[in-house]
């Protein structure tokens, strides 16, 4: 089978005593996911769901508990330089992503040099290769970020990440700040680079259209937890978690039949106030008393067939409707 490049188990990120009630903020709780070579996995959610925190924890920018395994090696709390190299991140804001004082060449060559990925005399050539890989002209090597557009800067950021020859790329809202036509280009670039270099890509976004277009699998996050995960087409066709359903219903569509308006009431919740029981139950129109009491685990509807990824949902009634019996399903 294809190789497992990233394997995360029980990841949690807790910020001590920051919330207004002086309770610790559980930005990420008990998240497990995996990425295989050549896959693009999408991570969606709204403000406060913890997806950005999760991304940062994966590349070592946040302290976390739990197990992160990169291609068989478990990462320690303090990563070695080589371990850090193998999972890289691309940020949302292209205008803050690059050191304004360094030319593109300097930015790229520094990465290659620090990690000793090429002998000294081959470094300039490698820099040219990288710039070529992301579709920029060789002249851009001498440019400073100030001369580049948002889309071009993102390409440079991608080149910088690829300079380290990582196995896994984490992209945190990489196209959100870009125009739609530029977004399409960057997404194409991600796909091409992923195939050409055999990477795994974790794409974090709030845009369900993007997920639908380029992700093989999707995980939906809410208040620090994954509440549903499935192959993309399955999730779109048959969402099992009430939040996922509402999320999908809220997306404006071109040319679709009139959809239900105002799918979900209230605002995305404050991560310092995680309710007892199911984190979604205060806003869930289908919640029962049991939902307020017990927090649901991710469960699979049926055994995955033919090696396809399973469809998991963290809802007591994901696979059996309520009303059959109040209380424990």
């Amino acid at each position: 089978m294809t190789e497992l490049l990233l394997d995360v188990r029980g990841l949690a990120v807790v910020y001590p005593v920051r919330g207004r009630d002086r309770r610790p903020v559980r930005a990420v709780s008990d998240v497990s996911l995996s990425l295989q070579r050549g896959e693009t996995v999408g991570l969606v959610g709204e403000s406060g769901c913890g997806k950005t925190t999760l991304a940062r924890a994966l590349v070592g920018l946040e302290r976390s508990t739990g197990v992160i395994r990169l291609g068989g090696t478990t990462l320690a709390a303090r990563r070695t330089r080589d371990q850090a190299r193998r999972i890289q991140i691309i940020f949302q804001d292209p205008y803050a992503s690059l050191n304004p004082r360094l030319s593109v060449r300097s930015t790229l060559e520094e990465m290659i040099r620090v990690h000793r990925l090429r002998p000294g005399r081959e470094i300039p050539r490698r820099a040219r290769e990288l710039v070529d890989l992301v579709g920029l002209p060789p002249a851009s090597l001498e440019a400073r970020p100030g001369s580049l557009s948002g889309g071009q800067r993102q390409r440079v950021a991608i080149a910088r990440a690829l300079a380290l020859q990582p196995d896994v790329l984490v992209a945190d809202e990489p196209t959100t700040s870009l125009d739609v036509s530029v977004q399409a280009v960057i997404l194409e670039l991600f796909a091409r680079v992923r195939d050409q270099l055999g990477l795994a890509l974790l794409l974090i976004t709030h845009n369900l259209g993007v997920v639908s277009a380029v992700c093989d699998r999707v995980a939906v996050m809410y208040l620090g937890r994954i509440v549903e995960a499935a192959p993309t087409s399955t999730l779109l066709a048959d969402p099992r978690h009430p939040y996922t359903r509402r999320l999908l219903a809220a997306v404006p569509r071109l040319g679709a039949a009139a959809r239900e308006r105002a799918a979900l009431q209230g605002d995305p919740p404050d991560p310092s106030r995680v309710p007892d029981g199911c984190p979604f139950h205060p806003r869930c129109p289908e919640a029962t008393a049991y939902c307020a009491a017990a927090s649901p685990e991710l469960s699979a509807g049926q055994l995955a067939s033919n090696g396809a990824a399973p469809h998991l949902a963290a809802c007591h009634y994901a696979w059996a409707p309520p009303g059959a019996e109040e209380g424990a399903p």
Partner: protein
Amino acid sequence: MSTPALLHIEGLSVAMPGPRGRVPVVDGVSLDLPEGRSLGVVGESGSGKTTTLRAILGLLPPGGRATAGRVEFDGEDLLRAGERRLRQVRGGQIGVIWQDPQAALDPVMRVGDQIAEAVHAHALSNWSVSRRRAKELMRLVELPDVDRTFRTFPHQLSGGQRQRVVIASAIAGNPRLLLADEPTTALDVTVQDQVLSLIGRLRADLHVALLLVSHDLAVVGEACDDVAVMYAGRVIERGPAASVFSAPRHYYTVGLLAAAPQVDRPGVRPSSIPGTPAVGVVRRGCAFAPRCPAASEDCVAATPQLGGEGAHQVACHHPLRIAAPAVRTRARGND
């Protein structure tokens, strides 16, 4: 035209200061918005859509100037109105909803007072009447627990609630026209859904016309009756939203539709538009020609003008005649 449009923009051109003198960013834009209808202006960055909106109320950044054209609101040319008249209109007959609700609200003033202030500026009443009206407006925009929320500060509210406060301020003067500049771009998708519903409901109840500027085609497709597509400072296609989005006639519109990822089409890769976006207004010829598959010599030589039979018009020398493989027409839903 049966009834004159509430907002009639004709040949509007705007120039902004640049490193070497003024640069045109909007060129000859003409739009019409009848009473009670909604018009969406779509485009990417650099298309001039936001500048057009700002020019209507004379809210251009320092150094920016309208260099040609007319902006007629209910017959009156706002470009030639004095600052005092404009101040009367702003927040009064024309309300504005901005993109970032956090930036649009005064952080050291309670939200209730801000709405009351908007009411007060356009009505001859005393403060207690204004405050009562502000609470009514807060109920209208569905803010929870009005009496308590009245006394909160903007930072205590969520993004969606802040935008509701902004909307309440915008309708405080009983406007006939609402201008909205990317009102939901900064919001989560479920909150965006709520806010768009709210705007739609208010529009219908208060019979307010809406000019919505956005880069999100789907939002415009759902919220607007008509749409105008802008590129490099010009309107290159306009007409009923259903028609423009289901049967686009300009190659840029086709490209834009193909580039927008659709939830309903899983696995369909959005395709990009070749070339790089035009920066600023192109003096002569079609700005899109370098990127257009159908470009010919007259595209570079002569600037195409908006033309076509009926309401759906396009500025192109060889517009598409048949429906491009785009999205199906949808029935206008509840709005």
